[in-house]
């Protein structure tokens, strides 16, 4: 990999809905680590088994798949706000959570919070905040896209009510209205760069210009909708173009995510900076250490994937 290339973390992306092409492009553009929070799949699930298999994919197949492209994959596990509204199912999912929250690549409970701000959503939001407090886990909070300011303020109030430290909670999908409150209360303020419906690149530049980089994190939340898995590196590029100091760019596109989620203990720079030498057979970035082939990224730069990489039947 080009030594002077910038490194990025995308701490909120739904890789389950993204293709291998996206993964290749992400890696080629400097994304070294991602966090994939548990969410819904576009329409309501109807049985707990599908949640179990989905959580299983976050700690198994998605983790492996991203690894084939040299991207270290982490995840958050939780019952999302939309599906919390099916209370019968929600009860079953709550039973499943302890079976996944301690897995190797799980860094937080998430993404949880409010969607419409119903009593059911609040009930399971609170129960999961309790789970996070009990097991000393970080929390990734999804703030509603409607009634956002009220929802964000209420989300933060609940976190504090349940005894969570603000620096151990990441409030996502902030905007110009919510950010002063999120920052002032000591929470991490993440912003989702998602065309049209959430934050835009240009607006993000101005937020950093105004507030600096402290406590601010940029992510893509790229999913099956019209979204961009390269949102983080593109935002960084725009910031540089618009004269944002380099230290701030690196903080919001890499360093702050590392500090925030690094508190989990299993989200470490050493995971992606050097090759893993513990097990010679480890399969990462499309080749084994033993086979000693050309690094995948070098080949990606030439525009072709090596034949033996990412073989899927």
């Amino acid at each position, binding site marked *: 990999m080009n030594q002077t290339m910038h490194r990025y973390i995308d701490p909120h992306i739904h890789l389950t809905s993204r293709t291998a092409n996206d993964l290749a492009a992400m890696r080629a553009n400097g994304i070294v680590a991602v966090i994939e929070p548990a969410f819904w799949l576009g329409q309501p699930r109807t049985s707990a088994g599908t949640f*179990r298999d989905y*959580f*299983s994919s976050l*700690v*198994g*197949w998605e*983790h*492996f*798949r991203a690894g084939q492209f040299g991207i270290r994959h982490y995840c958050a596990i939780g019952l999302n706000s939309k599906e919390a509204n099916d209370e019968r199912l929600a009860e079953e999912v709550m039973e499943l959570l*302890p*079976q*996944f929250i*301690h*897995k*190797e*690549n799980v860094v937080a409970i998430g993404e949880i919070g409010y969607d419409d701000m119903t009593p059911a959503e609040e009930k399971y939001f609170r129960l999961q905040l309790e789970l996070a407090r009990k097991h000393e886990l970080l929390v990734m909070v999804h703030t509603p896209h409607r009634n956002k300011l009220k929802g964000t303020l209420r989300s933060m109030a609940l976190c504090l009510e349940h005894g969570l430290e603000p620096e151990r909670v990441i409030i996502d999908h902030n905007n110009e209205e919510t950010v002063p409150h999120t920052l002032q209360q000591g929470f991490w303020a993440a912003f989702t760069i998602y065309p049209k419906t959430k934050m835009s690149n240009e607006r993000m530049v101005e937020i950093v210009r105004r507030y600096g980089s402290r406590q601010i994190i940029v992510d893509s939340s790229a999913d099956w909708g019209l979204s961009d898995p390269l949102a983080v590196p593109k935002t960084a590029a725009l910031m540089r173009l618009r004269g944002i100091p380099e230290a701030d760019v690196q903080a919001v596109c890499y360093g702050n995510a590392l500090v925030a989620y690094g508190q989990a*203990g*299993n989200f470490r720079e050493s995971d992606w900076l050097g090759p893993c030498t*513990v*097990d*010679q*057979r*480890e*399969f990462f970035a499309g080749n084994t250490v033993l086979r000693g082939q050309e690094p995948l990224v070098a080949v990606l730069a030439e525009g072709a994937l090596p*034949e*033996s990489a990412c*073989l*899927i*039947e």
Partner: protein
Amino acid sequence: MDIRAVSRSVLAHEFLEFVTVRHLDLAATAWLDGTLRLLAREDSPTILAQAFDTAARRIPVCNLELSSTELADAQRRRPGWQPQHWNTLQAARTLLVLALRHQPPEMYVPLLDGLFTTASEPGLVALYQSLPVLPYPAAWERRAAEGVRSNMTSVVRAVALANPYPAEALSEGAFNQMVLKAVFLDLPLAEISGLARRANSTLADMLLDFARERFAARRRIHPELPEVAGPFLSEEQKRQLDRMMKG
């Protein structure tokens, strides 16, 4: 009850405890010791499942660094067992799983099933690696065949390579699928235990077909393929394969 399998589990447990603990600091040793004793007392699937997960935080990971004497000892305890690539976390997880080995199959098999179902990628690798030393060997056949179907190459390797279990337990069809997948993934066939013993003419035919497919696509044919298929091919087939290998 398979007496041989039971004694293998005991002997493996003893071996793993010795070769693992020497790599652990006091905190890790205390955790492992305490957890194994708790499991022996409580017999609890929930405690096992949680310990299996949290072991990743408690056990510092490094290769077991087994000497050739120790590897020979492993073979004596469990013929065909090749833990040379195992790390401390995999060994610790195997110890945790073996802690409940005295349970009857109607309890033990669902317990392991539960672990397989919710396992992370590293967890699956540890479980499939441990198959040769688990009690009730016949119970894991379906799982092993499923492991071969995995899209996660690390998992396929854990089943197929340096593992005596598939050659002993898989049906001919399932074993053949494993070899074919290994060829497809460019894995080292020499590391498939019992391959020479279990190779058969159906497998040879499948491999020859696959070689023809690769040749037609002008793609590399696995260099170890002729050795596996050869003994079952006719002279004419062998000549054809030879020509294709030479490109």
